[in-house]
């Protein structure tokens, strides 16, 4: 067991972790943040995407102990004061989610793209979401939502 400190959605947690525990299960099982979904365990699908120190990371590819000292944002950490984050709002408005299972990871990947200034065009968004699978939508509404959110977030800055 190893002592690890994680700041998740602004809250500091000190945890005793087994070295083999994956970050996604630390979030889901220990911190009860089950919004982050597991789709594949092989970094194929991106359903488990979270932000680690502002970078989009598939949390099934990272050990909890590797995140020691990191600031982590999960889907639960986006909304402020009960109102949807602009990306969440755009996903809702554009019907960019059908079953909703890929959505938390897709939203986090999109937030990262926008915050890194990489959501500059439809093509760039498609390229940037390459690691996140959606089996329901055919992606068009997701891309439209991210474009819309990028505009809204740009205007808000």
């Amino acid at each position, binding site marked *: 067991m190893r002592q690890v400190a994680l700041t998740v959605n602004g809250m500091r947690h000190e945890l005793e972790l087994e070295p*083999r525990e994956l970050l996604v*299960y630390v979030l*889901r*099982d220990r911190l*009860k943040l*089950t*919004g*982050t*979904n*597991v*789709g*594949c*365990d*092989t970094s*194929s*699908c991106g*359903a488990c995407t979270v932000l680690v120190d502002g970078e989009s990371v598939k949390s099934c590819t990272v050990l909890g102990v590797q995140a020691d000292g990191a600031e982590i944002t*999960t*889907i*639960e950490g*986006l*909304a402020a004061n009960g109102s*949807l984050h602009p990306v*969440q*709002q755009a*996903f*809702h*408005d554009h*019907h960019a*989610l*059908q*079953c*909703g*299972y*890929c*959505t*938390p990871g897709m*939203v986090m990947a999109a937030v990262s793209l926008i915050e890194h200034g990489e959501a500059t065009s439809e*093509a760039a*968004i*498609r*390229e940037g*979401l*390459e690691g996140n*699978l*959606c*089996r*329901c*939508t*055919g*992606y*068009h*509404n*997701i*891309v439209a939502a991210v474009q819309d959110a990028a505009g809204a977030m740009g205007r808000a800055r």
Partner: protein
Amino acid sequence: MTGIGARAPRYEGAELALGDRPFVADLVEPGMLQGALRFSDHPRARVLAIDTAAAGACPGVVAVVTAADVPGERLQGPLTRDRPQLVAVGETTAYVGDVLAAVAAESRAAAREAAALVRVEYEVLEPVADPFEATAAGAPELHPGGNVLSVSRVHRGDADRALAGAAHLVHERFRTQTIEHAFLEPEAALAVPVDDGFRVFSQGQGAWEDRRQLASFLGLPAGRVRVTQVATGGAFGGKEDLSVQPHAALLALVTGRPVLVVLGRRESIRFHPKRHPLWLDYTAGCDEEGRLVAVRARIVGDTGAYASVGDKVLERAAGHACGAYRVPNVDVEARAVYTNNPPCGAMRGFGVSQANFAVEGVLDRLAEKAGIDGWEIRWRNALRVGDRTGTGQKLGQGVGLEETLLAVRDAYREARHAGIACGIKNTGIGNGVVEEGHAVLRPEADGTVTLLHSWTEMGQGVHTVLRQIACEELGVAPDRIRVAVDTERELDTGITTASRATVLGGNAVLDAARRLREALGVAPLESLAGQEFRGDVVVDWTTANDADEPVTHLAYAWATQVVVLDGEGRLEKVIAAHDVGRALNPTLVEGQIEGGIHMGLGQALSEELVLERCVPVTETLKSLHLIPPTGMPEVECILVEVPQPEGPYGAKGVGEASLVPTAAAAAAALHAFDGVRRTELPMKDAPAALAAVPHLRRAKERT
């Protein structure tokens, strides 16, 4: 913007965007254990012994169960009860997804480690890898009734004579692939012991069907098993069969504690039924003007280890073998054959998308011979009101195929490289099965209304649409209607399948709303709190394929799609004109069509579950070659609304029709580009495939 025709947002869409809407794997119960399964190591092997001692001795393990622990009927299945939910010592495994033991432990890791320690001794046998091996002389008998699960026939007129007299004749063999659903949420179930039975939290496609089989498996009356439909992270037909619910329930029975079983992705791919690969041998003839005179088809489907709904899939392939066209002479036979491959069952398109690839391909070849283009031959043969379908069903109202053809004509003719294909897809199971819709509207004391229905929301939008109908009929705001699916209230309508939930569920909600409205005429909503207003519909008038005056299905969806390629043969655009009867929510309809085209293009170009001697080797989502965001072309949806009298407000299903024409249209577009007629799916060497899916491109560069 709440009633019929409104682009109303998805029910619980905000909760899903927030990550607040739990899926089964997110649920926690006090004292809950984690379950894990031990699968067979071989597709076909006699199980000589199962030793659970080492597994049971692992720290944290509470129970290890095998077939010997099953109190009820081990063999289950949606139609044919041929699948042991746990394979017993002395029995022979049927595929590598057979379950031999299940473990419950205090942690997921402990359960998985212990499951791997279950020792199994086998007598390994040679597996049967395809339906032709399975039906060859001397093949081992995989099931007591023999290796042919079903034979479906459609026979009208005199095909031999018509073909002999045809002006143009085409004979072609087509082959389609095994496809994995790749729903994003792997199988999961939570079983909780309650007073006199079990409560099971499910993501399956039919809560009542799950209950029926679970109760039988546990040896309990149905009333002692309660199934709550939680949320379903995609299904596409892949969650129609029981999955891990029986194992969770058995472990809960033995331990007396709640048990959650969640599969990993490799396990999921190994475990659940797939899309059938079909071998289709077609002969078709037309007259000088390109009018079809006859179709003869021999179709063989690999239905894999267990029946699932494979007989229905091949029945549907046979019934739709003539596509969306008027064919006076028909001779079709479709067989479902057992092998030791993963079982094949329901997947969006359900045999029809495969058969359509063949019949549309045949039509293109006939058009060439008759000297007309792809649009013209379809126009001349398209089914219209009063015509008879392949099975001989005389079409009444609700046939918008002509309109869908007209909607794409100019785009097809103006594009340099374009392919066109039509599609027909049944709404409802039909074929003589009695189908029902039930719904309850219950005003609550707080002024809200609870809508209880029976259909699984798996992303297609059934909760949203049924709520919209209730809003329209009651004049109540959508945020005051809550939707739930739970077997606590008896509303059994079977599986959410066959693009039928909008029609059957919608009509039931209409009926319930009518009763509630009558009561509202004399009392305000709040005063009716607690009273239930039930709506019911029954469709008991469909017939078998071979009936004298067949009514094969209650309705059909119609479509024409055009796939356009650019100067390099890459996907540029898909134009999809769909007759949906009435678009109750155009945003949801377009979402279904766009998603269906994504899946249809994958079927056309890239997707395949690759098996080597019956063992899946494409065990990750990456290796299945789904089309990524960069590979998707523009999609233009054109909604045609020719009212279907049997549907609510004229609506019919759209979920499956969305991908029925796609593969054929893509094949025709590729032919327009490079002159090559392709007969096998996926067309993974085609320029469109290599451009759309980087993994395919890289794999080709390596070789």
